């Protein structure tokens, strides 16, 4: 088993904020690894350490077998990086940007030409070769940035929230491209705040307040989840949710559209039948109750709350 990324006890603080505390994870060759967490969780910090843009306060990380401390030049040469913000030259055309980045990585002429053709074909940007980067749509910009990150055929692609601020159709298209790349053997490390995107990854790491909550396959993470999720349909959502909050922690009661979502422990704690019965006694109307499949979001919220309550 080849390890492409090995992070070991990475710590990073900015002033008094602890951005990362003792983060360890491993990414295997050829997998698509998702780093999932809300804004401010430390995703960008971790990615900047792995791309050697910043030096961690302590801990070691190896990318493609090279140390981020001592061998940053080797790493930088071999990875493709797409920062969170669109970071190509807005006044250069698609073609000029690609040319510039291929020169930066010293890609030979023949290789550049064949590679450009290939990248343009799958990103469908060929008709826009002469267009300035700032006149592209959001989705096209992201695809161009991806192409520039791939021009030197890197072994590892590191993407920082590539689909933030991109419309849903382009998002789906972008992920399909990533899937294709993975099929070609490129290892992908991608961060995202969107839970639904995590399902496209082989393995995910949940990160919250600078700590990794879990690193697992998606199914395994859902198994970790010792809870059941119910949807309670009612005309009086506010009253009902307030009633539930008397017995349950407020984080586990959530109004969603036409229903109240309730998360209960599998083993102990209040049971759904009892809760509904007591709600009916109090004069709340309950139409019906459904059991839901846990979403990653539910898992995340639960793990986050468990950790926070440990700290308290």
């Amino acid at each position, binding site marked *: 088993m080849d390890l492409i990324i090995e992070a070991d006890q990475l710590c990073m603080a900015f002033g008094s904020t602890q951005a990362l505390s003792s983060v360890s994870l491993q990414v295997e060759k050829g997998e698509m690894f998702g780093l999932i967490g809300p804004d401010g969780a430390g995703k960008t910090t971790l990615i*900047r350490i792995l*791309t*050697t*843009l*910043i*030096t961690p306060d302590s801990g070691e990380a190896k990318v493609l077998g090279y140390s981020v401390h001592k061998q*940053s*030049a080797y790493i*930088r*040469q071999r*990875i493709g*990086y797409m*920062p969170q*913000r*669109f*970071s*190509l*030259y*807005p*006044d*250069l055309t698609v073609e*000029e940007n690609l*040319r*510039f*980045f291929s*020169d*930066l*990585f*010293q890609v030979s002429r023949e290789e550049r030409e064949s590679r450009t053709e290939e990248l343009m074909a799958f990103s469908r940007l060929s008709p826009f070769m002469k267009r*300035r980067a700032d006149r592209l749509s959001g989705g096209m910009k992201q695809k161009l940035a991806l192409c*520039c990150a791939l021009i030197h055929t890197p072994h590892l692609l590191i993407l920082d929230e590539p689909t933030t601020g991109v419309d849903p159709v382009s998002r789906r298209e972008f992920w399909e491209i990533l899937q294709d790349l993975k099929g070609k053997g490129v290892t992908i490390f991608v961060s995202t705040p969107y839970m639904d995107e995590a399902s496209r990854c082989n393995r995910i790491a949940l990160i919250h307040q600078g700590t990794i909550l879990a690193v697992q396959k998606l199914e395994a993470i859902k198994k970790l989840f010792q809870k059941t999720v119910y949807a309670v349909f009612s005309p009086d959502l506010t009253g009902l949710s307030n009633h539930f909050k008397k017995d349950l922690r407020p984080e586990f009661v959530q109004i969603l559209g036409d229903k109240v979502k309730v998360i209960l422990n599998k083993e102990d704690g209040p049971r759904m039948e009892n809760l509904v019965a007591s709600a009916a006694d109090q004069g709340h109307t309950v139409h019906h109750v459904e059991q839901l499949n846990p979403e990653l979001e539910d898992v995340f919220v639960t793990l986050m709350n468990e950790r926070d309550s440990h700290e308290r």
Partner: protein
Amino acid sequence: MKLSRLIPLMRKELIHMKRDPRSLVILFIMPIFMMFIFGYAINMDVKNIRIGVCDLSKSSASRDLISKIKASPYFRIVEFFDHPGRSEAFFLDRSVRAVVLIPREFARDFEFRRFSRIGIIADGCDANTATLVQNYLDGLLSGYTVFSSGKQTLSPFVYKPQVLYNPDMQSSHFVVPGLVVLILMMVGAMLTSVTIAREKETGTLEQILVSPIQAHEVVLGKIIPYFFLAMGIALSILLFGHLWFKVPFLGSWFWLMFFCGLYLFTALAIGLLISTVVSTQQVAMMLALIATMLPSVMLTGFIFPIASMPEILQVLTKFIPATYFLIIIRGIMLKGIALVELWPSVCAMSAIGLFFILIAVKKFSLKLK
């Protein structure tokens, strides 16, 4: 260092310039515009000073003197009056800057004692002008005694100062070279600091850093294209000074441009140094202006002579590159002196430039902060 990476970096800068012709035009027009404004504004020649004359003598001798004053380009007589007490009112409403008082005894004294007194009252609120008025009137009147009486003066010494290199004492002749020094420092520091700050602001620096690029390639890739741009600006303002303000150019253009290049490298390096501490274009621009303009104006001998500064400031002037370039440019343009006389300044300037470049390259980091 790889040339195959440096050239694309420079080509990219050229595309930036080409795509933004408006900024390019501003870069060329602004210095000329500044030169035009300051060339006239920092004018220490006093011409057409409004003066009043109070002639109590009313003699042919006094009329003769008045016509002499009238003929001078420096003065314009706007008030004639008979009562010396009225002069204060003229000063208060600023209608005159100086008053010439010709006493009643003027003609008589002049006739019999070949010596007479004249009163000059100047407005001290503007001390500069007051001194100049005094000096000009002095010159005018001493000439009057010498030439008009036709007889020997009683003064045991007659001195006539001779001003070399700028015989007419035209202030444009020393202001224009000084402006070139100032403008090039400002523009040079601004060019590099702003373009690097722009790469930080748009995030492009973060993107290009994750590549095999090396620090000195980034630095040179910025400095070289802007060096040529700045040289173009230098040539344009020198020509403008020479053709418009008629500043003489006695020395060698080649050597001046050569030293100009050395000086610009220093300016660009200072800009680079500024760019390492700022993250937005606006801050970069402000800092570049403040860091270069104040010292280059105040501490170089451009406006205030170094010799008359307090000693601490005199020491400080030795660390400012503009001080040396001012000596060089004035030497070459106005005196046409040979390189032999300039080498101490050239060495000092190069040393300071090298120092800034080394620090800038050292401080320029391939990491994000």
